[in-house]
């Protein structure tokens, strides 16, 4: 079909998107249920603040310093979010604080870089990602990290789902919300720090939210919703990448738009199915 399919970069990009789609559809399920959609953008922004700080501390590109500072800043964000959820806040939703963290981290990046302009390009790269040119070894390392986090989430699924679906009940039953939330957001920060480097902020947000929303639209039950979310993420990646190759477009925006396109199709399909059901069997009352 297209000569680009014969080159390994397509398969690396596809593999990377599938790895990302896998963990993000799952984490997205938690995020959407909790109604903290922009926590991912806020943590990604904290990570880039860490990157910016590393550029001030050291003029040489020290990858480990950069990584740990980025990770450290996301942990700071994680601690803030976990702590905020424990507070009784009248009238102010958590989302507002997430927005504040996002904007402040962004502003801080500008302030920090004003004093050390060596790396705006480096930073931009980190935000846009590079699906076509990502190193396969990097994808592999990321996959291993995600697998570890996935296993941890599987083993701890009971408390994690409790604090997501029914935080008040969990607290009444004696769950320590702060620590579970901290663990959740910290693991989330791990994932976001790595995935933003590969796919960029925009697509990571798309992978997180769109498949989860698709799953929740199609089913109210956790299991089926997760399964549909995964299938949706895989389909979106495949369609988006093939379209990008066919029409010679950047990968990340193409996948994001494809995911949304599929979501619209799914929404119309569900609407049609409901209408059909209503016609066949008129609702009582």
């Amino acid at each position, binding site marked *: 079909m*297209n*000569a*680009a*399919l*014969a*080159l*390994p*970069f*397509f*398969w690396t990009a596809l593999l990377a998107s599938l790895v990302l789609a896998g963990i993000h559809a799952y984490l997205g399920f938690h995020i959407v249920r909790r109604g903290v959609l922009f926590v991912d953008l806020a943590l990604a922004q904290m990570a880039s603040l860490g990157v910016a700080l590393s*550029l*001030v501390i050291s*003029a040489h590109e020290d990858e480990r310093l950069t990584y740990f500072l980025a990770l450290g800043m996301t942990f700071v964000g994680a601690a803030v979010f976990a702590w905020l959820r424990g507070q009784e806040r009248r009238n102010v939703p958590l989302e507002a604080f997430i927005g504040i963290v996002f904007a402040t981290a962004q502003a801080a990046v500008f302030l920090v870089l*004003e004093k*050390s*302009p*060596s*790396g*705006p*390009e480096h930073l*931009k790269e980190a935000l846009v990602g*590079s699906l*076509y*040119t990502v190193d396969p070894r990097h994808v592999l390392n990321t996959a291993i990290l995600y697998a570890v986090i996935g296993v941890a989430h599987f083993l701890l699924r009971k408390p994690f789902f409790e604090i997501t679906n029914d935080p008040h009940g969990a607290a009444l039953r004696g769950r320590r919300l702060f620590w579970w939330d901290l663990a959740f957001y910290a693991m989330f920060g791990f994932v976001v720090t790595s995935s933003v480097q590969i796919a960029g902020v925009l697509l990571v947000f798309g992978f997180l939210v769109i498949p989860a929303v698709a799953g929740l639209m199609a089913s109210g039950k956790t299991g089926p919703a997760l399964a549909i979310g995964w299938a949706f993420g895989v389909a979106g990646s495949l369609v988006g990448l093939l379209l*990008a*190759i066919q029409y*010679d*477009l*950047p990968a990340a925006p193409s996948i994001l738009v494809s995911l949304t396109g599929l979501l619209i199709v799914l929404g119309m399909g569900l609407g049609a199915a409901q209408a059909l059901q209503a016609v066949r069997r008129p609702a009582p009352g």
Partner: protein
Amino acid sequence: MNAFRMSTLLLLIVAGILLPSGVAHAKLKVGASTPDLASIAASVGGDQVEVFTIARSTSDVHRVEVLPSYMVRVSRANLYLKVGLGLDQWADGIIDGSRNSKLQVLDCSRGVPVLDKPASVSAAMGDVHPYGNPHYWLDPRNGSIVAATIGEQLAKMDPPHAADYRARAQAFAKQVDVTFARDKAIAAALPNRTILTYHASWVYLANAFDLEIAATAEPVPGIPPTGKHLQELVAIAKGRKIQVFLQEPYFSEEAGKFLTRQAGVRVVKASPSCDSAVAGSYLAHFDTILGMIAGAPAGGKP
């Protein structure tokens, strides 16, 4: 060899058969990061090469978004010409992704006298290229050096035509001399040879044509102009009666508008890269830029 590699190889072989193989054997395929290198390669390679460029005249060569077609084109190329000096690092991703084991990569900055080479790089200096200023093709005399480098490389890769390549590189150097003399005369006739620029990309041009860059709008390379810095520029422009502010089309227009309003300077928008990957475009570009600095209407030449 695993199944994945095997299938990739098979696909590649199939692709190779499907391609028009006659053409592939007859001509060397030369890819270049910029239209300038491609144009020089077209002049030197003549009928024996087929050239293409990744960046266009309108692209910001500092950052180029990698697209699938680039890797496909490079996967079929014999030679890739890099600008080097850290400018086109994105090309490495394309070269890697093309998985072209036969590809030769030539760094065209080889042998070019590099300007602005920092003694040491610190974060305070901005987005400085540690190897020196990489916009060397904006001195036509460096074009001659690049032509010679490309000529030698092509001669090595295609020995039967070695003499042709060398002869064309020399002929190109003669054309450079003619263009250089003509445009130097335009520069010499300018009422004021002191100019302002947006980015530090015009250092080689200024050096070649005896222009003086009084200041750049970016306080340090890669950082957008601040209000205070622009005020200083206004003072410089008024004090030294500067008339021209030279900038790339892809940078923000705000600084230029401000300087026009406050100091009456004329904004000259010129791409640092020539129009197309054909022979002659590289040298014609100098006529265009100098003409625009001298006051030719910006839209006069496409």
